[in-house]
């Protein structure tokens, strides 16, 4: 056996020739033609095509060189082919997606064993760019592609799992922990003030604006992330935050293939927190009692069985999490038809007792080549999810708030409900019902018609259905009413929508060197949402939760709602390439949205991009041996945002919430309808470079961009004297500058060992450029302890705004300042009698000033606040920006090592330089509620007597001194580095696998969230903030799990 490994040639000539051939090849594949044309005197050759590990490659194309693509075939499912070739002998070109092409000489009638090498950073990869595709080498915008292989290493349940760390500029926050939860994905930072407006646009198999919730990551063939506006502009109004195009898998021309996968994951509480034990609770009680305003004495009675437990709530409330994941897929194809079917079922039992989610996803993809010219495609996907939503506030947060000496169980073994105003978190977890199930289905039908060579008409229609139902119930045992009362509700929601698209694609090459592409299309879509809720109390039976069980229906919480929106568009693209050296793409899109004012329904979005392959210039020939390929890209594009309320442009009268004396009132809402409302515009300039070294062993891509949002859709406060609170307007602007760097490398590649590496780094700096009114405070602006944020011109989103704590006054006399508000040091004699002040060691005899809070003089045990305004009161004027919730950078390194049958992949990711507000700790430590026990550190370190040097204020001083307002004590560094995914796979040698009638068999060990390095003190520093104006506040979330699992993959 002779193995032939021919490397791809990179001369200009072969590049061009190759390109032409690939196009023809694609055409052939599409038509599923296995044409064999005989010449006068020809011979039969046959052979097999395999990858480097000996696995057959089905669907590889084998073409006779010089036949102009006319003579060729595709390999069957065993990788075999046979072909008639001209007698003289010649060359065969063998290629397959994801592998390097080889050209081999035929030496007569032979059996040819052909081995294809996996392509390293192949430039021939197809990139989906919206309504058409492009080869990676011709791309002019900033697009990152993620392949099925990259995703496979993750055992992803959600898209967030699949994409985290895979691409520069893609900020993926994974909320992994709670069953059924996902996370968030943001491309190149937020650019507007609403979270909906900051989410990327998803295009799944051509369906624009599809929901990413229902995608099964193992169905994904490729993900193309359109980052710059020039790439996204073809999607116009919704592409302001980038576009994620997902293409799902399709079967290949071969025998049916069955793929089975099973994974079982165990999950552990990744980070257990220290909580005050019963002894510490009593210590704190004594502390409360001994103080002047002390009121608490309760719950320390040594004879009361209710107060003499010593619980480890985290142990009681959590368990070993178990997750089963089953996947089965069936794919294949024949001459005219190709198909892919998959089913996934996930059964997840979370860390917190009684938290669970079940997920079922089904997909059917069919392509049918009806004739040479017409192809029909069907994509059907169905999703079902069912979960019990655990109330985090009443369970995991309650475990920290509730004193550990409170009983969980009554003497008879039944669970307690409320004890001294504190819920029993175990009862909440076990008895509170919040069941949510959801069904979604999407059906997509498409016809492609090749009108003439190079001109193709595509039309498709999508129907989308989504229905959700939520049943909530809180039984009597959890009631705080007197007498006890149960309550519940049942809510339904339904969303139906359709989308129609029709477009023409045109390709033409003139005079061999000039290739043109064109696109012209039209689309329209409409969505209708309906919902209803019925609420009741006094259920006669606590197991029957339908509303006939409710004794009383609550009218204020019983209603139905409805809304709809529509969008229509015309779009087009022109592309030009000269020998692949100079590339140009320009797009235009005109979008109409029902959400805007009558005069402003339509918005136009343009883009242009150029790319220059400088390595194709002769003056770069010298570098050819090292720099295989180099391309400079420059783009400019406009996109838009329409993520606002459906009817913000209409002045409306509402009803249902203005009742008086038996009459349902009608009134305008608090938001003024603005008929002049228009599009939010986003322009983005991007410059980037793509470099390929050493024939693909090393690839580097780097981009710099400036993204500017103008006519910001902004909820401007109206003077309340008008009777309204706010009006939606187009005002203000926002700018993000960013830098991205990514690297693909294969540092080691020998016969048996291979090491692949992907690394990326992203830096984003967003600033509010212009804001009507200059600044406003989002979140807490009062005396509470929750976080507040300053949103101001020139500022960043996520600027925490509050008071800076400099320590705690040791003595009453320590609250003393000179005329310039510099601290004075009190001096005491040996018996503790106050003597006077010194400053810098010298006696001070000037005026002594003190600080006050709402008329109350601060004293020993109160927090020393930074007196920004330099006056005698600590008030709103003393606030300052305390930190920022956005990272300085984020990035990831993904390694894949393979040695014979073994392969090990592991991902490190990091988010660095962001601050978080630990509101979960703040809520414990604010002394406000008698039966909420602070953290042990606070109990031990609270100021007790004059002279104590500490950073924790005295426990009786809660409201009068302002000690508990939002302050820097709870700002923490949220930086982390995480070993987030690890998978070790062993694949049986093909020969052995075949003996047990499988094509492939592999077993693997999988782990996620294995090690985290961080200084953040609460459960985990990584979580999603729902509101871009309120970033980085940790209110105490469902704890993250550390997962370890075992899996099996069988391929028939």
């Amino acid at each position: 056996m002779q193995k032939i490994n021919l490397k791809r040639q990179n001369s200009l000539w072969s590049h061009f020739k190759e390109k032409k051939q690939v196009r023809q090849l694609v055409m052939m594949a599409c038509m599923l033609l296995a044409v064999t044309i005989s010449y006068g005197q020809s011979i039969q050759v046959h052979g097999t095509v395999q990858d480097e590990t000996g696995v057959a490659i089905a669907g590889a194309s084998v073409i006779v060189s010089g036949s102009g693509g006319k003579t060729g075939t595709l390999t069957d499912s065993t990788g075999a082919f046979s072909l008639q070739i001209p007698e003289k002998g010649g060359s065969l070109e063998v290629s397959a997606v994801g592998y390097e092409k080889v050209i081999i000489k035929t030496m007569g009638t032979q059996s040819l064993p052909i081995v294809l090498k996996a392509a390293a950073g192949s430039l021939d990869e197809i990139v989906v760019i919206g309504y058409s595709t492009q080869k990676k080498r011709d791309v002019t915008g900033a697009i990152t592609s993620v392949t099925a292989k990259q995703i496979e290493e993750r055992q992803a349940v959600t898209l967030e799992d699949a994409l985290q760390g895979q691409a520069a500029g893609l900020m993926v926050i994974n909320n992994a922990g709670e069953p059924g939860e996902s996370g968030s994905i943001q491309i190149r930072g937020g650019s507007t003030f609403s979270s909906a407006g900051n989410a990327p646009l998803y295009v799944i198999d051509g369906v624009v604006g599809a929901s990413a919730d229902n995608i099964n990551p193992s169905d994904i063939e490729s993900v193309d992330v359109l980052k710059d506006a020039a790439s996204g502009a073809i999607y116009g109004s919704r592409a302001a935050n980038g576009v994620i195009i997902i293409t799902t898998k399709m079967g290949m021309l071969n025998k049916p293939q069955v793929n089975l996968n099973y994974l079982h994951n165990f999950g552990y509480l990744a980070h257990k927190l220290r909580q005050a034990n019963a002894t510490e609770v009593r210590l704190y009680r004594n502390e409360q009692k001994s103080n002047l305003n002390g009121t608490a004495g309760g719950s320390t009675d040594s004879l009361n069985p209710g107060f003499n437990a010593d619980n480890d709530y985290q142990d009681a409330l959590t368990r070993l999490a178990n997750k089963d994941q089953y996947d089965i897929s069936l794919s294949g194809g024949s001459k005219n038809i190709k198909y892919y079917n998959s089913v996934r079922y996930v059964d997840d039992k979370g860390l917190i007792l009684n938290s669970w989610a079940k997920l079922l996803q089904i997909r059917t993809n069919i392509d049918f080549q009806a004739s040479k010219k017409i192809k029909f495609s069907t994509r059907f996907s169905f999703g079902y999810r069912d979960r019990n939503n655990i109330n985090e506030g009443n369970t995991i947060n309650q475990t920290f708030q509730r004193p550990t000496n409170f009983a969980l169980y009554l003497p008879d073994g039944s669970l307690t409900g409320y004890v001294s105003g504190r819920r029993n978190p175990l009862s909440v977890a076990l008895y509170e019902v919040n069941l949510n199930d959801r069904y979604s289905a999407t059906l997509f039908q498409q016809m492609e018609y090749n009108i003439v060579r190079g001109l193709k008409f595509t039309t498709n229609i999508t129907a989308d259905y989504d229905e959700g139902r939520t049943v909530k119930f809180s039984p009597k045992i959890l009631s705080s009413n007197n007498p006890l009362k149960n309550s519940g509700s049942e809510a339904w929601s339904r969303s139906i929508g359709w989308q129609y698209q029709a477009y023409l694609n045109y390709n033409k090459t003139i005079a061999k060197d000039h290739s043109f592409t064109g696109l012209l299309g039209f689309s329209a879509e409409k969505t209708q949402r309906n919902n209803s809720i019925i609420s009741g109390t006094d259920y006669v039976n606590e197991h029957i939760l339908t509303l006939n069980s409710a004794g009383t229906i609550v009218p204020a919480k019983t209603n139905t709602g409805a809304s709809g929106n529509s969008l229509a568009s015309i779009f087009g693209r022109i592309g030009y390439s000269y020998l692949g050296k100079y590339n140009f793409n320009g797009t235009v899109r005109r979008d109409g949205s029902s959400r805007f004012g009558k005069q402003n329904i339509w918005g136009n979005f343009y883009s242009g991009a150029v790319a220059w392959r400088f390595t194709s210039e002769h003056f770069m020939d010298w570098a050819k041996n090292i720099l295989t390929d180099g391309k400079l890209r420059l783009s400019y594009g406009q996109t838009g945002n329409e993520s606002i309320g459906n009817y913000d442009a209409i002045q409306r009268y509402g009803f249902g919430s203005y009742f008086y004396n038996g009459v349902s009132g009608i009134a305008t809402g608090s938001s003024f309808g603005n008929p002049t409302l228009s599009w939010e515009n986003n322009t983005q300039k991007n410059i980037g470079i793509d470099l390929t070294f050493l024939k693909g062993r090393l690839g580097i891509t780097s981009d710099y961009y400036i993204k500017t949002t103008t006519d910001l859709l902004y909820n401007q406060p109206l003077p309340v004297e008008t009777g309204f609170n706010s009006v939606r307007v187009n005002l203000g602007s926002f700018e993000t500058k960013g830098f991205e760097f990514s690297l693909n490398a294969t540092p080691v590649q020998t016969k048996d060992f291979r090491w692949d590496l992907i690394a990326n780094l992203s830096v984003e700096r967003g600033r509010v450029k212009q804001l009507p009114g200059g600044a406003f405070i989002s979140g807490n602006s009062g005396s509470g302890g929750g976080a507040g944020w300053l949103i101001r011109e020139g500022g960043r989103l996520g600027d925490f705004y509050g008071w800076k704590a400099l320590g705690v006054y040791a003595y009453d006399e320590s609250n003393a300042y000179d005329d310039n508000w510099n601290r004075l040091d009190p001096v005491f004699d040996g018996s503790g009698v106050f003597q006077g002040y010194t400053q810098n060691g010298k006696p001070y005899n000037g005026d002594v000033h003190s600080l006050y809070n709402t008329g109350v003089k601060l004293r020993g045990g109160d927090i020393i606040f930074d007196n920004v305004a330099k006056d005698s009161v600590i008030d709103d004027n003393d606030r300052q920006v305390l930190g920022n919730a956005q990272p300085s950078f984020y990035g990831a390194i993904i390694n894949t090592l393979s040695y014979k049958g073994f392969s090990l992949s592991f991902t490190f990711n990091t988010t660095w330089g962001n601050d978080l507000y630990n509101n979960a700790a703040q809520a414990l430590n604010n002394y406000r509620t008698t039966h909420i026990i602070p953290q042990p550190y606070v109990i031990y370190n609270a100021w007790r007597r004059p002279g104590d040097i500490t950073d924790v204020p005295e426990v009786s001083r809660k409201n009068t001194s302002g000690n508990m307002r939002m302050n820097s004590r709870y700002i923490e560094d949220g930086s982390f580095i995480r070993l987030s995914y690890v998978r070790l796979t062993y694949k049986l040698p093909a020969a052995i696998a075949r003996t047990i009638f499988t094509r492939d068999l592999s077993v693997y060990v999988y782990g996620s969230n294995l090690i985290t390095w961080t200084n953040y003190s609460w459960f985990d520093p990584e979580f999603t903030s729902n509101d871009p104006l309120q970033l980085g506040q940790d209110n105490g979330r469902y704890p993250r799990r550390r997962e370890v699992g075992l899996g099996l993959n069988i391929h028939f």
Partner: protein
Amino acid sequence: MKQLFFASMAILLMGAMGCNKFLNEQPQTEIGETEFWRSEADIQSGMAAIYDGFQDCFGNDYVLWGDARTDEVWRNQYGVDDHVLNALSATSSGTSWANFYEVINRANVAIKNIPLVKAKYVPGMDQAVLNHYLSQAYGARAFAYYWIVRLWGAAPLWTAPYENINEDPDRPRTEAAVILDTVYADLQKAVALSDPKSGNVFEITTGALYAMLMDVSMWKKDYGSALQSFDKLMALNKYSIEPTATWKNLFIDPRSTKGAIWSLDWDWTVDGGASISALIGAGDTNSDFAVEDSVWNYFTQHPMDIRGAQTIDFDVTNHDKFNKFYPKSVGKQVYPNHKEANVLFPLYRLADLFLLRAEIANQQNDPATALQYLNIIHERAGLTAYFATDFPSKATMENAILEERKLELYMEAKRWFDLVRTGKVVEVMDPVLKARQALRMSPEIGFGDKRKILWPINRNVLNANIKLEQNPPY
């Protein structure tokens, strides 16, 4: 090339066809402004929205405005110092006038549209019926401005609805005197339009309008006009003092009494719970306020005063439960969950006006009449009548009337305005505040700056209107 041309044209044609119509989406749970104000039923709904606005105004804040800054209450451990230590700031609760302007806007919309209903859609509508609706709208607007001017002084004046985005929404404050004149003029207009036979205790009736007129005149120290309004009210022959035995009905069932003039209806099942209950007495939470010792001591030491046990809960050791607005329970008082509380806040009732009548007499140097009206209320409470000799001077009589008002109208948002109206804020509150400041180990400055009688304007309200200026010294 020909195919390309035709195919392109087909696409563009599809795109161009009927798009604007396709993109016309109308609200499905609300109606556009052009579809409202077309029938009498619409007017009724518009009126309900005005009263609903008053529920927003008084559902939480009336205790803060009318009682919290006085010698009626002290704070509980869960409350804040702002009100009870004269330490209000621009972020204190109760500093926003937004809800009053919500009422004003709804009233302005009604005043503009009610006549158009008859003119454009229902020509046969009875003019008297229409006038009575209009009268309520004027009355509501006047009442909202009256509260604003008493709490904050000068304020932006809007007498027509804000309807056009191009109209400047920022207006500066209009002088307090001008606002008060507008209030008075609106009330007179309202009385003229009002039908004395229409309405019920939860609405602005002719009686309620006279009560407002009397109150406004008292605020302006125009005792003559106040007396006229009182007389006109009594001439309606609708009102009389509720007997001792059924005093509680004034707060829990105003429809059943002749002593109630205007009360705020509340039904938690549609309005949500009256959140005022969380400040003064709800089953599921501690109150923000506790009974001030002077009141606690008076009521506990005078058990014959029937108001005590029906006003505050003697059984609660931290003195933080006020039971005035709830039916008396058998045994231990049961309080509703704050999300299920109804508080039928009495805006005007006859006892209030009788005591004002006593004040008028006292001001007009007629102590006999003053004593007569004072004693009606005093005796109704189960106490023995005062003698003329108890009050040797005009000043002692005034204090006695104010004291009676404090007990009778306890937690009905009258005390603060009584103190402001009679110029007694500093006199009464100085000693109280000094004692509280001592407890806090703060400088005992008493009430301090007199300009703090006016409330600060809420920070967000200030920020939203660039032409507003804060009340000094806040």
